[in-house]
């Protein structure tokens, strides 16, 4: 009842709407945020790890297990690393008057 089945034109509609959404969303981002944005969108395609888990759980040969393990390993790296760097960068952006409380300890920690 809840199985998902996407084929042919339905897939194309999904791709078209998603591409349009991506284009519109990014069109509004100011240049100052381009690096965090690239890293943030890099994080979002880390969702591939979910596909990796699906492939690995359905693996029935040693070869499939090995490649599936590889997929989850890399996908997890994409997602975790992408989040870590994006979050770190975005936390640094401060407006005048606010920077003293937040920015200082962060910098001190980096030393």
């Amino acid at each position, binding site marked *: 009842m809840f199985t998902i089945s996407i084929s042919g034109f339905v897939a194309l509609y999904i791709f078209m709407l998603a591409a349009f959404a991506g284009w519109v969303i990014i069109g509004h981002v100011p240049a100052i945020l381009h*690096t965090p944005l690239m890293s943030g969108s890099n994080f979002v395609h880390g969702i591939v790890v979910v*596909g990796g888990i699906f492939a690995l759980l359905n693996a029935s040969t040693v070869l499939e297990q090995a490649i599936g393990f590889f997929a989850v*390993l890399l*996908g997890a790296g994409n997602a975790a690393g992408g989040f870590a760097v994006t979050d770190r960068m975005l936390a640094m952006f401060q407006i005048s008057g606010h920077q003293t409380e937040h920015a200082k300890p962060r910098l001190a920690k980096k030393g």
Partner: protein
Amino acid sequence: MFTQIPQLTIGATDLAAALLFMYGLQRMSSPVTAPSGIFVAGVGMLVAVLASFLYAFDVSAAAKPFLLVNIALAASALIVGGGLAWWSGRTVAMTAMPQMVALYNGMGGGAAGAIAAVELFGNKAHGITQLIVTLLGALIGAVSLSGSLIAWAKLDGAINKPLRVRGQQVFNGVVMLATLATGGYLVVAATGAADPLIGMPNLICLFFGLALVFGILMTLPIGGADMPVVISIYNAFTGLAVGLEGFVLQNPALMIAGVVVGAAGMLLTLLMAKAMNRSVANVLFTNFGAAATHKQGTIKGCLKPTEAGDAGIFMRYAKEVIIVPGYGLAVAQGQQKLYEFVKLLQAAGVTVKFAVHPVAGRMPGQMDVLLAEAGVPYDLIFQLEDINEEFATTDVALVIGANDVVNPAARTDKSSPIYGMPILNADKAKQVYVVKRGQGKGYAGIVNALFYGDNCNMVYGDAQAVLVKMIEAVRGLGLSAAA
């Protein structure tokens, strides 16, 4: 009914994840809401990953005996891969950010390629359409993996020189065609046969091998200065590969997230290429470094060195100062000293603004991040189109560690390799100070006419050391005035 609960849960969480990703990316369009944006997207990711273990309730009959082992493998891969990447992402220096993004991106491409490999080796694609989409995703993912690794190596300094040989583009084209031909053969052979791909593991290996080699060959000839555009392209590629594999796995969350990133990455790539006044094709297929050896026109005037302290005091008594930071500032790790100096100027009533070129740093927007790291509020940071008019009326332009992005040759010299690139008009300021390590040329290897202008003085030295001298000079002034 109960057997459907896992499927229902996975469907619902994936739907939520797709929504949270788009909402999160949308919130990233302003510095005020951006931190919450990445948090929202992170929640979506966490929920989707946890829910994906529910696939265990619905595995194929062939995979049932392996289920416990597979769950353990998946959990350990998540912990090891996620843990290592998390640790590296938390500890990496902000100057090394571009290569880390390249590395994580390559991982995503590799994951998409690996999923395709499982589908191909296990012969799991249903029908020709799925097979073609699987192969396409595999190709794009593999190219993104090997290409991103080369980009990482170049940005990290492991590969210094662009590698170019005669006939390279023809050879690359042949490799590309061979890859497509292998994929095409797999599709043709699969048509009508019962279990067609089982007998062709060698061809599948060849297909992946060729795709990986193509990614390497395509990236090797591109110079380090163009790497940001390349990373952005591969970012879009990985997104596209993930979207295609999402279709193969019948997972709409992967389809949506992947293609949103694919489109966003393409737009970002075009914006970056535009900022450098070059087309994407020009970045990929022409040898930028080769063009830079053109004959230099003779430049009138001479270089006029000055002391750091004198320059600092001059700025203390100016009304408005615009600072043009470049990658050299980050190399010298001078951002914090720079902000300290800026605070001194502000305390003395000087209006200080930062002018950031779109391609300052090794990645568009990286300079903004580096300044933010040093505590510079983002309302002091202005982009090229917003501040360029102001140079004509400002008292001082302080250029630190930047070169090509303030080179007036881009406006005037048609033979210059950077001709047509939008530049910051620092040369129009009443007084220009250029802080520079030595008399060398910029990344593009071009002489800078700005340095020879009548209104320009050079302050030689390491950016951080120079800034320390400037701070001391201005502080000393304050003390003597108080005494």
